């Protein structure tokens, strides 16, 4: 009897130990610091930069990879290339992992990617852009499924120069308001808004040089009755051979805009206004200026008043003719 109870107990213990538990979702939560690094370096040189990646989710298998990217669009988007290209070579200085080598990382733990960046001899001067990726290995399953992999990136903007100087070749690609009306008179275009309209401004810079720039721009508004308003734009990076829309720190809220804007001025306006952009570059004397102008006119009100006048005139004519026949 005692033997039987013992056997049952052993069997129950084994069954309990081997019984599959409820399948839980595997959450992947990754963070990286710093999320971006800018490096200016000479050819044929190497340096080391550490990135701290933290796994805030469940344990998993990961690996690091470096790929190149290009600028895409005018709002800081990235267009990835499959591999790292250009005259920069990367490797990990970690003692236990290398690039594209799988490693296990516990939940709530950190791994430091000690990245060695090396420029080859006679590397052509210019900018080269890369992203260091931490990639999670997708889980395996035996059913029809989409197996997910989370990938987190940190950007490396690398400028190669022989003398430490990175030239700036920038021009204003677009600087104007988004008007409510456009009128063409004598070959000239007039941009017009209603007096109560918001004034959305677009400032796009085109970098035609070989090095990225971080312009410090201010947009100012000058109008009648001593109206002066200005907004400072963030020094966002404009990569080589690309355009970028500069924006204020606070996201500009524009109700009638179809596209992203740099800044929005609010207020009551009437008359002719001049808009100016003052663009500088940290550590350089070079400055760029741009101007644009627009009119704030009560077009809607004018239309209503004209309509009313027209209607009143027609009514008068009608009454007059009726009176005449009577």
């Amino acid at each position: 009897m005692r033997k039987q109870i013992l056997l049952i107990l052993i069997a129950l213990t084994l069954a309990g130990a081997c019984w599959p538990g409820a399948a839980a979702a595997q959450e992947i939560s990754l963070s990286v610091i710093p999320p971006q690094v800018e490096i200016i370096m000479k050819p044929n040189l190497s340096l080391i930069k550490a990135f701290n990646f933290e796994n805030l989710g469940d344990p998993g298998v990961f690996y690091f990879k470096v790929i190149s990217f290009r600028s895409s669009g005018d709002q800081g988007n990235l267009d990835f290339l499959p591999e790292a290209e250009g005259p920069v070579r990367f490797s990990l200085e970690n003692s236990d992992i290398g690039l594209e080598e799988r490693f296990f990382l516990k939940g709530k733990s950190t791994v430091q990617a000690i990245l060695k960046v090396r420029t080859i001899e006679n590397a052509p001067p210019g900018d080269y852009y890369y992203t260091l990726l931490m990639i999670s290995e997708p889980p395996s399953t035996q059913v029809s499924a989409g197996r997910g992999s989370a990938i987190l990136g940190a950007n490396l903007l690398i400028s190669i120069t022989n003398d430490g100087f990175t030239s700036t070749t920038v021009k204003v690609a677009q600087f104007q308001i988004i008007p409510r009306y456009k009128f063409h008179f004598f070959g000239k275009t007039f941009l017009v808004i209603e007096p109560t309209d918001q004034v959305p401004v677009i400032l796009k810079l085109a970098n035609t040089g070989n090095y990225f720039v971080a312009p410090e721009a201010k947009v100012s508004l000058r109008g009648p009755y001593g109206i002066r308003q200005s907004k400072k734009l963030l020094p966002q990076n404009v990569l080589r051979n690309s355009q970028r829309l500069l924006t204020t720190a606070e996201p500009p809220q524009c109700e009638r805009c179809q596209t992203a804007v740099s800044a929005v001025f609010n207020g009551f306006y009437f008359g002719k206004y001049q808009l100016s952009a003052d663009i500088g570059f940290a550590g350089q004397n070079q400055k760029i200026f741009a101007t644009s102008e627009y009119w704030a006119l009560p077009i809607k009100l004018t239309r209503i008043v004209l309509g009313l006048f027209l209607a009143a005139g027609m009514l008068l004519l009608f009454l007059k003719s009726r009176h005449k026949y009577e």
Partner: protein
Amino acid sequence: MLKKLINYSLLLLLLFIMVATVRADRMGSTNYEFLFTNLNSGGTTTSSSNYTLDISLGQTAAKRWEENGYIVRAGFQYIHKLYPFTFTLSDTTLDFDTLLPNTPTTRSLTALISHRGQGYEVKVYEDHKLQTFDGGAWINDTLCNNDPACTSTQAELWDDDSDYGFGYNVTGHDVAPDFLGTNHYRPFSTSPVTFMSSNTLALARQSLIKAKINIDGAQAAGTYQTILRFIAVPKY
């Protein structure tokens, strides 16, 4: 014996006195150096009516270029502290179990972003179409209702159960504007496509990604899989 002990003690005492103070030194060799990011914690922007001054403690000096031939800046110039960029996927398996013909099956997961820099984007791509382990049979990527056909960058309506394929819908913060509602889908692409994007700082921005499969009666029996890769990157 006692004399020896005294001699050794004196020798040890002398050694203690002679030990030089330990000093921090440059780490590395002639070929490389361990470099630390800027100490930006004390950085700030000060201003008056006449000037604006950005202070960033520990900013790499120009002299570093002359001596070592490089300058490194970490983080974003307009943010005076180094904040992490965080990306969370609520699940890594979209388990569709057994698929039935003309019966759409959906599975969801959430993507969460936190970033104090100006902007981020989240992209997705598939390694290949949903296919059996031997690659002999596959489920095509959806064309939605095919009126017009959706593409990897343009979501369209997909609510007709007689249109088959594999695709995804996204709702939530900073989602691409072509996802007009919960029935608008895109097919997965084999190259990364952005579905979530912002130009401003992101504090707990979240989206729900709903993957959908619909198969017809002629679909070969088998287990179909693909790998969906979700990439989160800060804007530069």
